[in-house]
């Protein structure tokens, strides 16, 4: 047992930090997930690419640095702590690329991976449909073989970033007769293909972050099929595993906690500051404890990986705990801010840039996206604990 990072890992952390200091504006506070962030995020990704730092965990041959699992964690933590705008490229880097690396043909790897590591191509994820959310395998979008092409018809929903994406990972049904898991194929779809309509959905934060995407006789060449026809479900599971184990979020929570601690130290109350309020103290103490626990659950996943063990239900515990923890933290932060907590970022009177109001709304989505908390609990119970299906 050793809870210390190796010296070379610490050195790597310092290097990432120093780089971020240089490459993010000195008063950088992060984006509050609004539209204005896209331009900056693209530029930032290109800067990262100069150091092969867009996807440093990928093998060197595909444009990464082949970082160790621990260094990957450190990278994630520092990015998240410094509020680097990586949310916009996460789908390509975090789960599309790794899936292509495992299942893609040489040609597909050549075609797609370089664009991702260059910070040039943006991906979106066309999985969920109106009637296929938690029950993803019941998706109905059809792909019908026609000569050298497939013809796609149907609809996706909640597609984050589809309005900016160049490419989409798409799940579509290629065999309507087969059992539902066995008739799905996985496509790499050019978003410029004729017949695609992207329709905005406005979210509770008044942002245009996700979309509905409609397909009307969209032709994709056979060469865009990832892996074998009708084997898409198994690759999708891999993609979802990557998505759910994109860890490091607890470091963002740590940053928020530090902001709150500073606020509490500076805000006058009863002749002293808020820090003298016992309820506030306990709230922050609880939050600190919960954040630390979140880190441990993530570290456990990495620790397994570093020993060469493929994590099982452990990724789900980290995803479940960390998203729910961040929702609780947002709530705790709002309580600390009192009446000020309800103010939106644009309010002149807003405290901590209205970040808590944003977080409180955003985190309600994070316990849904990427598989809801209930689905994670089901996975833990069934896959992890071996309990019978309910």
């Amino acid at each position, binding site marked *: 047992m050793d809870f210390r990072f190796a010296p070379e890992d610490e050195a790597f952390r310092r290097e990432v930090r120093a780089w971020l200091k240089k490459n993010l504006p000195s008063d950088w506070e992060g984006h509050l997930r609004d539209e204005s962030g896209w331009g900056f995020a693209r530029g930032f990704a290109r800067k990262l690419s100069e150091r092969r730092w867009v996807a440093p965990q990928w093998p060197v041959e595909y444009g990464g640095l082949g970082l160790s699992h621990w260094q990957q964690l450190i990278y994630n933590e520092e990015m998240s702590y410094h509020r680097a705008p990586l949310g916009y490229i996460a789908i390509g880097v975090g789960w599309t690329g790794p899936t292509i690396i495992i299942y893609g043909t040489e040609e597909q790897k050549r075609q797609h991976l370089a664009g991702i590591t260059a910070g040039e191509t943006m991906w979106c994820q066309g999985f969920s449909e109106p009637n296929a959310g938690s*029950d993803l395998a019941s998706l109905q979008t059809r792909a019908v073989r026609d000569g050298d092409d497939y013809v796609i018809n149907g609809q996706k929903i909640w597609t984050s970033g589809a309005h900016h994406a160049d490419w989409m990972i798409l799940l579509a049904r290629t065999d309507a007769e087969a059992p539902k898991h066995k008739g799905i194929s996985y496509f790499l779809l050019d978003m410029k293909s004729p017949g695609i309509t992207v329709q905005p959905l406005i979210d509770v934060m008044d942002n245009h972050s996700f979309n509905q995407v409609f397909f009307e006789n969209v032709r994709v060449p056979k060469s865009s099929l990832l892996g074998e026809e009708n084997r898409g479900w198994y690759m999708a599971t891999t993609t979802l595993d990557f998505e759910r184990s994109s860890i490091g979020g607890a470091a963002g929570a740590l940053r928020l906690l530090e902001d709150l601690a500073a606020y509490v130290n500076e805000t*006058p109350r009863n002749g002293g500051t808020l820090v003298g309020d016992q*309820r506030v103290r306990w709230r922050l103490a609880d939050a600190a404890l919960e954040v630390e626990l979140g880190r441990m659950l993530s570290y456990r996943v990495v620790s397994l990986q570093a020993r060469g063990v493929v994590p099982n239900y452990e990724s789900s515990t980290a995803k479940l705990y960390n998203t729910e923890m961040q929702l609780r933290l947002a709530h705790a932060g709002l309580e600390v801010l009192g009446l000020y*907590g309800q103010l939106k970022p644009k309010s002149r009177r807003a405290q901590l840039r209205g970040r808590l109001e944003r977080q409180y709304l955003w985190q309600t*989505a994070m316990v849904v996206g990427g598989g809801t908390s209930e689905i994670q609990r089901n996975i833990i119970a069934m896959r992890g604990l071996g309990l019978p299906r309910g």
Partner: protein
Amino acid sequence: MDLGLDEQQEMLKNFAHDFLEKECPEELVRKMEEDDKGYEPDLWQKMAAQGWMGLIIPEEYGGTGMRITDLAVLLEEFGRFLVPGPFIPTVVLGGYPIMLAGSEEQKKQFLPKIASGELIMTMALTEPSAKWDADGVQLEAKAEGDGFVLNGTKLFVQDAHVTDYMVVAARTAKGKTPEEGITLLLVDSKSPGVKFEPLRTIAADKQCEVTFENVKVPKANVLGEAGKGWPIVEKTKLLATVAACAYLVGLSQQDFDITLNYAKERVQFGRPIGSFQAIQHKLADVVIDVDGSRFITYKAAWSLQEGEPDAELMASMAKAWCSDASRRVVAHGQQIHGGIGFTKEYKIQLYFRRQKWMELMWGDADYHRELVAQKLEV
């Protein structure tokens, strides 16, 4: 003992339900989020015509002379339909303190106009310190000639920008305790030197920053006695706390009803999601939170109405519970809806965002837990 509504309350509730369902649809609620005023004058007049603004105002002043529990029943429906606008500010924060402490002349001047819907009011209490206690009142009122001159800032004042008059809590003297030296002034909202700036809030309601710059208020506009305003504020806060709870009860109930319905209709894995125990247990917890909120609120309203010795304790218990319970209710509401809950277009988020507002209004759970603890020690 009977925890149910009486016949008249049943009628009020049913009538209000049908009326608001028709007159305050979701589209109006959404429209008022964007609207500068934040209320619909037409609907305001229609509500006044039902006698709602004068519900607890005595008949001699143009009201219907009903009781606090009746008001709670009505406000529950307001919460259910998220009725936008200055109803609680006018009736509870403006009318009630005048009923409690106004001179005969003031009562005659204000109450009939409140009842008829001609007058919109609020109370300007909290300041940038955001405190509900007496030491939060620092706005200065200097005695000068035949009146007072106000200088300072009030913050989080509900609907102030559309009011005709505000009850302003100001400091006229530095007393031995923070409670001493606070004077309530009836301030004409159009007085020179008064400025309003609506705040941008999670609920898109209309709380304002109100600044006073050399605002002159005649002596005749003192409500109650100069320097002795705080006990009136305390009593008003008590009713406002109960009113916030009643609103949260209705809001929670409606969030629950919508969610329950969704759980029955939404199918995943070939069955309604409401058939999964994970969802059933959440909904079972929610129904306890909603029912619990209702009865503790009714008890608080009744205790206040009857002048029970533990009325303050009950109000604080109610708000501590309702603040937490309603948050659990709407959090489950979001979760059970999945992705659609995060869209602006779907209705459930309207409840989610407003819950946070009422959770904070008149003291959050922590604030009231502390009061409960203090009261229990006595």
